[in-house]
């Protein structure tokens, strides 16, 4: 995202393309809960 300060969990699910990807919950375990404070610094 250009010009915006990113906040939140980077691995939150999105729809991006002709179909919405629906990942396994296990796939989302890595890099979850990135600290909002640390990302905002």
């Amino acid at each position: 995202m250009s010009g915006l300060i990113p906040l939140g969990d980077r691995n939150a699910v999105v729809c991006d393309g002709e179909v919405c990807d629906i990942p396994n919950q296990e796939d989302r375990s890595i890099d979850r809960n990135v600290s909002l404070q640390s990302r905002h610094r």
Partner: protein
Amino acid sequence: MHRGSLTPPVPEPIKIDIWSDIACPWCYIGKRKLELGMEQSGVPVEIEYHSFELSPDTPVDFQGDEFEFLASHKGIPVDTAKQMISRVTDIAESVGLHYDYDALQHTNTVKAHQLLHYAKLRGRQLEMKERLLRAYFEEGRHVGRVRDLADLAAELGFDRDDVIRSLEADEHLADVREDQAVAQEFGIQGVPFFVFDRKYGVSGAQDAATFAEVLKQVAADRVKA
């Protein structure tokens, strides 16, 4: 004493611009999670939805069900597609949404986006957005054809004939395209995408607690500024 001087100032609501599509399961789930996060944070907000078409080439009268569509586009067996859809249906249930993929009618959403602009002009965009998402995911209603959209709008009290006139004339197509151009400027590639106070970007169907934390952070930053 001036009575007003004892009243604490009412904080300006935080503006949340949301890019999303109708045919987007995570957009509806993200909407619910944002609403929960708003409740948890207690921070006043003002929401505006913007258009994002995930599948602009889809025909209005798409033939086939969602399972076949997902399987063919991802190059996976239909059974795998069914399992994936079952998972997102379970996640939707966890936030009180009852997705019905057996009834869902996959379609092109550009007219639905125009209807959202029509409703926005009349101060009713949020109601229209909720009605369209519920119609698509829970009720198996068609959200691509002008007359079906006009029926949904009429349920909310809009003038059905005027909605048909507007949609047939593509009255708000330029507004849809403008939203898409801004999304491109922001580098938005997936939805839902949330912009807080035109400064902070949050991508995806975040947990309610994350949304609450973001809102508190943005409100705190305003105080510092």
